[in-house]
C-alpha cells in the first residue's frame, strides 16, 4: 500500500508475524517476498533493491537488528532509502522474547559504525504502525536515508482495528538509481567508499546538513493534558499507553499530570518537550528499559528540571498503577517543596 515492492526477512520472535503476513500478501500484489539465509543477507538484499530504485523493507527483532547494523551503515553511507522495523525484545545477548524498549540507544545512537542517523519512528498503536510505515517510506525517499520503526513485542503481537488510509503513492523519481542506464545517462554508482579523507569528510558533512533540516522539520510528539500539568510523564510506544492510563488515574485524584509521547525518536522532539514542560515542576520518564530515552529528555530540558525515571526491563511491563504510584510520590515531594 505504501508502494513497497519487496520484503526481505528472516524469522525471529516476536516479529515473525510481519514476515508471515508479507509472505502471503506480496505475491498477490506483484511484489517480492524472500526469506533470506540470514539477517545479514536480508539487509543486503534490501541494499540491492534500494539501489535498484524500488521501495523495499525488512523487519527483525533486537538480536537480528544487531546483525543488520553492518548493512544499515552501508545503506546510510550510500544514501539509499529503505524501511527497517525493529519489534524490540529484551536484551542484551539472546535476552528474552518478551516486549522491551532496550534498543533505544541502538536505534538513535549506534545503528551501525560511522557518523550517521536514521529516521526513527515510535508507533504506539497498530493504527499508528500503519500510518508511520507510509510516513517512513515517504521520508526515507525524500531524504534518501533509512527509516526505522521502533516497535516492541507488545505492539507487534497486538490485535486492534485499523483503517487503511487512501492509497497515495508518493514514490519520487530516482535518477540516482543503479537500475541500468539504458544508454541514456552516465553510469550510476551506489557506494559508501571514499578513500580520500577530504572526500569522506565533505560527504558526511553534507549528510549532516540534511540532518539539520530534518531536526527542524520532522520532530513529532503527542501531548496530552500538558497545559496545566505539574508533573509531565514522557514515554514512547507501548510504555506511553501505560503512562497515559497512569496520567488519567492521577487526574482523577486531582493531581495535575500530563504526558508527552515522542513519535519521532530521531529527530527527537526536543523543542516540543522543552516548551510543554516550561511550567511543569518535575518530569517522569517511563520506559521498558533501564532508562535510555531519559537522557534525551534531560538534554531537552537542559537539566533545568528534575527528570526522574521509572522502568522495568527484560520483558517486564510496568503497570499503570505502578506509574501512578511514582506520580503520587513526586506529587507528595513537590507538594511539600512548593
Amino acid at each position: 500500500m505504501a508502494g513497497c515492492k519487496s520484503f526481505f526477512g528472516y524469522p525471529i520472535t516476536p516479529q515473525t508475524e510481519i514476515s508471515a503476513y508479507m509472505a502471503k500478501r506480496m505475491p498477490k500484489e506483484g511484489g517480492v517476498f524472500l526469506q533470506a539465509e540470514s539477517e545479514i543477507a536480508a539487509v543486503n538484499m534490501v541494499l540491492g533493491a534500494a539501489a535498484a530504485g524500488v521501495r523495499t523493507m525488512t523487519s527483525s527483532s533486537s538480536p537480528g537488528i544487531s546483525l543488520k547494523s553492518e548493512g544499515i551503515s552501508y545503506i546510510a553511507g550510500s544514501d539509499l532509502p529503505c524501511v527497517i522495523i525493529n519489534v524490540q525484545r529484551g536484551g542484551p545477548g539472546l535476552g528474552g522474547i518478551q516486549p522491551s524498549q532496550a534498543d533505544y540507544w541502538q536505534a538513535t545512537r549506534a545503528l551501525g559504525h560511522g557518523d550517521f542517523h536514521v529516521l526513527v519512528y515510535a508507533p504506539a498503536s497498530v493504527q499508528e504502525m500503519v500510518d508511520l510505515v507510509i510516513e517512513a517510506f515517504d521520508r526515507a525517499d525524500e531524504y534518501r536515508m533509512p527509516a526505522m520503526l521502533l516497535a516492541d513485542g507488545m505492539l507487534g503481537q497486538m490485535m486492534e482495528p485499523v483503517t487503511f488510509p487512501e492509497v497515495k503513492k508518493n514514490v519520487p523519481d530516482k535518477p540516482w538509481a543503479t537500475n541500468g542506464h539504458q544508454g541514456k545517462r552516465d553510469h550510476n554508482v551506489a557506494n559508501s567508499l571514499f578513500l580520500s579523507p577530504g572526500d569522506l569528510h565533505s560527504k558526511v558533512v553534507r549528510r549532516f546538513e540534511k540532518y539539520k533540516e530534518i531536526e527542524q522539520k520532522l520532530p513529532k510528539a503527542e501531548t496530552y493534558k500538558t497545559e496545566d500539568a505539574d508533573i509531565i510523564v514522557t514515554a514512547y510506544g507501548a510504555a506511553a499507553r501505560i503512562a497515559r492510563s497512569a496520567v488519567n488515574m492521577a487526574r482523577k485524584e486531582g493531581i495535575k499530570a500530563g504526558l508527552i509521547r515522542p513519535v519521532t525518536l530521531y529527530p527527537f522532539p526536543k523543542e516540543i518537550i522543552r516548551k510543554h514542560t516550561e511550567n511543569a515542576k518535575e518530569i517522569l520518564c517511563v520506559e521498558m528499559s533501564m532508562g535510555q530515552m531519559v537522557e534525551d529528555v534531560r538534554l531537552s530540558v537542559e537539566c533545568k528540571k528534575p527528570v526522574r525515571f521509572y522502568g522495568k526491563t527484560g520483558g517486564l511491563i510496568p503497570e499503570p498503577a505502578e506509574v501512578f504510584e511514582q506520580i503520587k510520590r513526586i506529587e507528595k515531594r513537590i507538594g511539600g517543596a512548593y
Partner: protein
Amino acid sequence: MTAVFDRPKSMRDVTMHYCPGCTHGIVHRLICEVIDEMGIEGNTVGVCPVGCSVMAYDYFNCDMIEAPHGRAPAVATGVKRSLPDRFVFTYQGDGDLAAIGTAETVHAAARGENITVIFINNTTYGMTGGQMAPTTLPGQVTQTSPYGRDTAVQGYPIRVCEMLATLDGVALAERVSADCFANVKKAKKAIAKAFGNQKEKRGFSIVEVLSTCPTNWGLSPVEALERLRKDCIPYYPLGIYKDVTQGGE
C-alpha cells in the same frame, strides 16, 4: 587506418589501481567484451566486493553497486528480484566469496538466483596485504601463515566450484585460468556462457578464474604465472563442474 584493437565500450577510460602483472585487468576486460558483444551495457548492474576489486565500480560503464564484504550475492539478489530483466553480476575475490561471504554465496546458488558470479581465486587476501585466504594452498606462506599453511592447524582450502556444483540451483560452475592466451580465451567463453544463462533464466552461474597476485606472492609477473600453472591448477583443476546445458558433469 583501421582499428584492430581497442578498449571495450563498457570499460571506462581510467587508470586502474591494480599492481603490475595482476590478472584482474584481464578479467575486467573479458567481462566488458562479453557485455559489449551482448549489447547489454545499459541493462546491466554490477556489484563489487570488498578486496582488491573494491573500486571496480570506476572501471565498468554499467551501473555499479559497492557491497559490504562478502555480501555481493545478497545485494545482487536484491537488484535481480527487483528488476528481473536486468543482467546482474558480482565480481568477488576468494576472501570475500569463500570466507566472510560463504553463506551469501551458497544460498544465492541454492536459490538458483539468476545472477552471474565472477570469482577471482588468487589464493590470498590481496588488498589487505597478503593474508591467508580460504583458498590458500597447503604450505603456502602468507602474512598470517608465516610458516606455511599447516592443514593440521589452519585447515584445508575450499574448492568452491566443486562444492557449488552439488547444488540444484546452479546452472554453471566452471573453473578457468588467466595464465595464458588459450586459457584466457576459454575464460571469456565461460563468462559469455554465464551471462547467457541469465538471459535464458537458467539460474546461478559461477566462473572461477585462477589468478595471480605477484605483489603478495613475492614473485615477478612471469614467475607468478609460472606458480599459477605449477601449484594452483593442479590443486584447483580447470574445467566445467556443472553446466545444465550439457546435462551436468
